[in-house]
């Protein structure tokens, strides 16, 4: 393996440091994860009441309900994770460090992604017990990973924006939901297809769409993050 150049190493070090401090703080308090988790369960509960999910309809909507849950709970997590940075002016502290701003973006995005994946990995078995559906399907996990990557890529960017506005308490979901809908659709379709055992060639277009959006979102966010945090 070729040795990485110094700037690349600095970049990775900074990314790791940012992600590490989020994870370390969370490992201690676990307040973000527990909030996301409780909220996710409440959303499932609300869906349950709202839709009186019965066995027949249940199957066809599983992937939709799951993704809606992830999206709502994810917003909560993104909001909180950025609020922490605004709290005692930490965002300025980050920006004062001699590291590439993209490293800060990736650090935050990684910790957000990890939180989201953890919540998803807990919600999945709970959901499958509650509704008696089997969700253990390696391909499903792959789709969930892809969907979550796209979601947190653009979510981290928009959370960094919304937290700097006057209406920060309400803005994130409003900004995020419409933009992230292509990812959500592709994820719902792909997971639905997998759960209903569609032939692979019907699922692939959706997975490809997911991949395309992941790449687009990551590169756009990477390029514009600088403008979002500078003054």
């Amino acid at each position, binding site marked *: 393996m070729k040795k990485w150049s110094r700037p690349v190493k600095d970049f990775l070090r900074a990314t790791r440091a940012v992600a590490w401090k989020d994870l370390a703080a969370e490992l201690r308090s676990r307040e973000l994860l527990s909030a996301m988790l409780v909220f996710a369960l409440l959303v499932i509960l609300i869906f349950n009441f709202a839709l009186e999910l019965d066995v027949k309809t249940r199957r066809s909507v599983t992937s939709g309900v799951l993704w809606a849950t992830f999206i709502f709970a994810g917003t909560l997590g993104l909001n909180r994770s950025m609020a922490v940075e605004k709290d005692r002016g930490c965002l300025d502290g980050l920006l004062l460090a001699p590291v590439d701003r993209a490293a800060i973006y990736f650090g935050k995005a990684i910790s957000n992604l990890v939180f989201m994946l953890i919540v998803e990995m807990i919600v999945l078995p709970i959901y499958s017990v509650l509704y008696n559906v089997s969700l253990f399907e390696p391909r499903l996990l792959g789709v969930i990973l892809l969907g979550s990557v796209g979601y947190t890529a653009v979510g981290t960017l928009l959370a960094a924006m919304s937290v700097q506005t006057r209406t920060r308490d309400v803005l994130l979901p409003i900004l995020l939901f*419409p933009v992230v809908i*292509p990812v959500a659709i592709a994820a719902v379709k792909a997971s639905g297809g997998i759960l209903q055992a569609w032939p692979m060639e019907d699922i692939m277009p959706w997975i490809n769409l997911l991949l395309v959006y992941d790449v687009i979102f990551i590169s*756009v966010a990477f390029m514009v993050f600088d403008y979002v945090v500078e003054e």
Partner: protein
Amino acid sequence: MTEQPVALKVLNGLSALLVAAALWMVVFYAPLEAVMGLVQKVFYFHVANAWVGMLGFIAAAFAGIAYLATKDVKWDIVGVAAVEISLVFFFIAIATGSIWAYPVWNTWWTWDPRLTTAAVLEMIYLAYLLLRQGIEDPDRRARFGAVYTLLGGLSVPLTFMSIRLFRTIHPVVVGGGNGGEGGFSMTPAMLNTMFFSIFVFSVVFITLFWHRVRLGRLAQRVEELKLKAMD
């Protein structure tokens, strides 16, 4: 600056004339469609508004890029103008679509991919207005606005392509089959009328856009004078 430039006055008149001409063409020149009858005539305005609206959204994304690159407020004013006017045009497209849908599909609305992506597109730019409203600092407002129009612009192609990618009931008549419920094949007269009304609405768009940019400039002047007076 206070007086309208001659070219703009000419455009005002021209726009009025063109709209009248387009109305004439739609009513008298374009033939009656065999199956759907009169409501099909809404088609010409429907497509023209949708096209012009989407082009405006794309223009806003480019204005966003220009703003981020140059930090010139001019581009911010252009961006807002494009979004505001396109929001109206695009809303008219949705409304006319709805009017058309009622007799043809027997419902005002259905969650077809085309209709949904169109609704999402409209929501994105509503969110854009809320975002701007929540920021006091004009620089940040312009920067965040630019970033968001960039993200929003990503959804325009998806909306456009939705009828060509997914199974929908919304018809494709240009460069596609005759799919969908209510599709029809265009006679040359229909085609002429369609292109003419797209042209007319583009001119109307440009006229309104010019007015809106002038308004933005004037508002800026007012702010400037207020600040001078306060100093």
